[in-house]
């Protein structure tokens, strides 16, 4: 912000810029979660080398895949200062519809399955977005309502029916068994999703708009950002990703039924928050959210690998979330102080 304002100051700004390389890495919001993940993996590996064996790695990635995709979508919504509690229900309904489609239309191409699941997710996500933006009701309330409604629809539709892996073609199940260079296919899908959404959020106009809306909705509107359209876009994208996660869920897990995906909502929000996405919007990245998801799912495997009682897992997740919130607050206070100081110098 100081660059080019006063020529005599260039030496100082240049100095500040050179030191910016390391400093900007240290300031990265994803840094704490990345360090935590590295430390966790390293320590567990030292205690039990099998943890990073071929099978261990594969399980780790498979477990993380679905949560990563959901966390990326949730991060887009949270960055706009909204939240979507209904993702677990969307995932459930899409997973069940995937099972149904395979039975109802034998020999249906897998591409169509993916498209249908994502389309259904898009529909459910845009209902959320529509209610939030048009009725101007907080997303927490709306998506709490749709969490129940979507789950109810899923229950009504599924009843006691369950579809098992045997009902689906082998090539579909193979998506979560076959690997390329050690990465399961569905994990590769998740990685592609993270990259695409990260580029979208970091360097496209609509992506940056989402941040602007999240940090100050009123200012965003005054600035001429189509707030309603952008928030709708965030909810729709989240729906598409939840739909994709639902299809992958059907590939990864043996059975899909009425209760698939129940209670997932807080895990997903937790992954995003742990990954440095501020709950009040405007900051954080989808890469951070993805790393957060990876960290939370890795903890479970790590505890098993070092033979810690599995019952500790959830308590540790809770502590991590609280740590992430505290770290976020500390960095925010520091940045504010730094901004104040630099502004005082410029005056």
């Amino acid at each position, binding site marked *: 912000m100081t660059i080019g304002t006063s020529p005599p100051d260039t030496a100082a700004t240049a100095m500040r810029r050179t030191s910016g390389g390391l400093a900007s890495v240290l300031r990265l919001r994803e840094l704490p979660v990345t360090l935590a993940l590295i430390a966790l993996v390293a320590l567990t590996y030292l205690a039990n080398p099998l943890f990073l064996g071929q099978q261990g790695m594969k399980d780790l990635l498979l477990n993380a895949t679905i949560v990563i995709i959901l966390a990326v979508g949730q991060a887009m919504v949270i960055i706009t200062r909204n939240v979507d509690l209904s993702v677990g229900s969307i995932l459930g309904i899409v997973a069940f519809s995937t099972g149904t489609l395979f039975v109802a239309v034998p020999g249906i191409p897998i591409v169509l399955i993916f498209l249908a699941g994502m389309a259904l997710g898009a529909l459910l996500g845009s209902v959320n977005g529509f209610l939030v933006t048009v009725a101007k*009701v907080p997303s927490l309330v709306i998506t709490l309502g749709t969490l129940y*409604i979507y789950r*109810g629809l899923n229950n009504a539709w599924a009843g006691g029916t369950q579809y098992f892996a045997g009902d689906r073609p082998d090539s579909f199940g193979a998506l979560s068994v076959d690997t390329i260079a050690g990465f399961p296919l569905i994990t590769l899908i998740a990685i592609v999703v993270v990259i695409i959404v990260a580029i979208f959020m970091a360097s496209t106009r609509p992506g940056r708009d989402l941040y602007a809306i999240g940090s100050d909705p009123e200012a965003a509107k005054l600035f001429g950002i189509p707030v309603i359209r952008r928030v709708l876009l965030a909810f729709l994208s989240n729906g598409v990703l939840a739909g994709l996660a639902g299809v992958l869920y059907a590939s990864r897990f043996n059975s899909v039924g009425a209760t698939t995906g129940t209670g997932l909502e807080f895990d997903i929000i937790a992954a995003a928050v742990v990954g440095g996405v501020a709950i009040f919007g405007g900051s954080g990245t989808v890469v951070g959210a993805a790393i957060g998801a990876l960290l939370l799912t890795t903890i479970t495997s790590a505890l098993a690998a070092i033979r810690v009682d599995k019952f*500790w897992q959830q*308590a540790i997740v809770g*502590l991590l979330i*609280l740590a992430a919130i*505290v770290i976020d607050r500390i960095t925010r206070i520091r940045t504010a102080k730094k901004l104040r100081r630099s502004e005082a110098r410029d005056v």
Partner: protein
Amino acid sequence: MSNPPTELLPTATNKSGTRSAGAPTARGRTGIARILLGRDTVIIYALVVFIIYAALFIPRFASPVSTGFLLLDVIPALLIALPMTLIIITGEIDLSVASIAGLTSALMGVLWAAGLDIGLVLIVSLLAGVLAGAFNGLLVAVLGLPSLAVTIGTLALFRGLALVVIGDNAVANFPPPLTSFFTSKLGGTGIPTVMIGVVLVAIIFGVVLHLTPFGRGLFALGYSKEAAIFVGIKVVRAKFWLYVASGSVSALAGIYWTLRYSSARSDNASGLELTVIAAVLLGGVSIFGGKGSIPGAIAGVLLIGTINFTLRLGRISDVVLIIVTGTLLIASVVAPSIIDGITKWLHTRRHRRTLPQASASGATRATASGVQEGK
């Protein structure tokens, strides 16, 4: 989602104030009309209408047995809804309530199985709830962290601690006199004896919220934190004690749950937080804070509970129930803003018709003020 609305509030009121100066005074109701037409009162009407309907048309509904089971089922949600109402009115939220209930239940099971006196078990369990609430209060009120994120964290933490305490065991052999007391009824009325306690707690929360300066302060706090600080409300202390109250009442609900079903498990009451919040919001408490009432929240819980019960009596599955819960919740929050939109539209249309140069006069006023500022 609590802080942003309070930040936005001033600009929002400003805007409506400049857009149509006459509207706010015309729309603000006073006295009895305000009470009789409030959002919470409408839910009470809905509850009464529904109960009358159910009593007339649903076989077996109007019987002591039905009343008993209905009330026994809603007591945990009813209890937790009371502090939740106060917390949401201040513009915060507590998602960890059901986990606190689960933690209490797990503790009870382990301590009882270890052979402690049942009185001591109850006291320690209740104390655990108080501490859990104080921990939330410390993070939210004292450190000023966002309650939505914090209580998602403690939701996982407390449920996790419940698992650590009791694992996947279940303790069921609580003393029979105690468990039968918790399902006993007052004479032939079908009303559970425990309801006396619940009503007492409800009266305490109702009086605190509606009839004390502290309670009025909570509304002020939810409406505008800055204003509340300026008029001398001790924001930190108020919020801290609300979370302690929430933890304590959640512990009571956990104790009740354990003894009513005579089973202490780590997953007791899981998912109850969403049911309670849905019921409270249905009962007219605004998620933005600053609005709501205890009678409304109670009516919200009872309405969802009663609909649930009648559907089950009518052999309709729980499936429909959760659709009804969700739809009621969305309808109750969307309807006011639709009505708002329609009245605003009618208002502007009327004004355009009667005052054709309204926009022109607005423009001159704007330039006049601009000139003044220029000087």
